[in-house]
């Protein structure tokens, strides 16, 4: 039995709303019987349509790492956030720097994070990241001490409305050492001239 486009769209909409977690296309596909035949492609098109239908609403249908979810658009947070008297805990710079290094450099050991930040990474911060389920141990580096290799999770991406690591803001370009040394030399030469 072929279901009408509108019915399928309504089912998708209802399912995403009713699910406590974001739903992937595969999660949605299993809701339909075999004879209701819906390809991933068809589902994706219908999800796109739903997304445009929400253009004028306070809600948006977004794709994050774990799948699709409805959320209240960021522009309404000045009002919506007042429903909770306690502001969400601000993320400290130390925590953000640590998770940034893990996100861009994963998998990475604690020592490598410390080398970049120039300070000891406090256990509290690592614990806070584990508590939020933003990072996991994905293995151990085969060097003495077998340090844990840390990587970010889908929940980390979800928390920042990202659907994949490639959506992270691009890391600033690095001027490699060769260029740096040359530039330093040039500067030195110029200084000597003056």
């Amino acid at each position, binding site marked *: 039995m072929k279901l009408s486009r509108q019915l399928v769209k309504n089912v998708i909409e209802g399912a995403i709303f009713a699910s406590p977690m974001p739903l992937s296309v595969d999660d949605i596909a299993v809701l339909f019987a075999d004879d209701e035949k819906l390809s991933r492609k068809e589902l994706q098109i219908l999800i796109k349509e739903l997304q445009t239908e929400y253009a004028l609403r306070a809600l948006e249908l977004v794709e994050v790492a774990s799948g699709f979810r409805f959320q209240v658009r960021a522009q309404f947070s000045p009002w919506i956030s007042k429903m909770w008297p306690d502001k969400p805990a601000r993320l400290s710079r130390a925590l953000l720097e640590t998770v940034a290094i893990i996100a861009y450099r994963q998998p990475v050991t604690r020592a490598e994070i410390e080398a970049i*930040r120039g*300070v*000891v990474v406090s256990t509290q911060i690592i614990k806070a990241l584990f508590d939020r389920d933003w990072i996991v141990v994905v293995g151990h580096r085969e060097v003495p001490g077998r340090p844990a290799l840390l990587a970010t999770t889908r929940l980390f991406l979800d928390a920042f409305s990202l659907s994949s690591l490639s959506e992270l803001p691009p890391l600033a370009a690095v001027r490699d050492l060769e260029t740096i040394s040359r530039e330093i030399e040039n500067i030195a030469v110029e200084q000597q001239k003056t």
Partner: protein
Amino acid sequence: MSVAVITEQVLPIDAVNDETYARVYGEILTKIPEDLYIPPDALAVFLEAFEGPLDLLLYLIRKQNLDILDIPVAEITRQYIAYIELMQVLNIDLAAEYLLMAALLAEIKSRLLLPKPVAANDEEEDPRAELIRRLQEYERFKKAADDIAELPQEGRDVFEAHAEAPVRDLLPTQPFTGDVALLLDAMRDVMKRTVLQQSHVVGHEGLSLQQRFQEIIERLSFGETVVFYELFPAHEGRLGVVVTFIAILELLKQKLIELVQNGFLEPIYVRQYDEAAA
């Protein structure tokens, strides 16, 4: 180093123009109040805000609009040491890394002062190169951390939206189709059970049919569905079964309750009569 620069950032004072020195909570001041109180912790808060020696160094370099590539090592080292001395005076727990960095800066400066061997190996790096590399690397991630903080954050900027899932109707919806004989069978089953559960309560309790109506209606009043057998209180014995059964029949007749069943020999359920569904 300039204390003024630091306090400005900490106190709620906006510089306005030359004549008015500042505006504090809307009030215009033309000179610094003599009793101006600078909280002793203000500096400490500012200094504690550094995420480590690299962060402090970057701050010193940026404050003077200098490029990382062109650090005047002597000057920066002097400022750096001034800061960490201040931190020590203020009893800020100084991580060992800060002191290590001070030593590194001094080492770089001394290596820069040494005369370069004339024809010597081109291999030898500028002593600043390693520090520059680390500063640059740190700055990239510092920027990345800022960028991530700007992203829409769940619970701060965006809020996940959910709706209640429809009530899962796992119970059968088909009306009971058997004839009275089947219902009598069901009653017989209940009867058998009462034999097994002989009550030892002596004495006689009158059972009111009217009261049983009420009880059944109340049990089902919130849309609850009850298994047929459960309506029969075991301790009431045969009389109770009879009264309850009559009550059920009467309520069925009055269309106040209905019986549903999933299929032959499946349990029979009792629920409020649903006019809409009928």
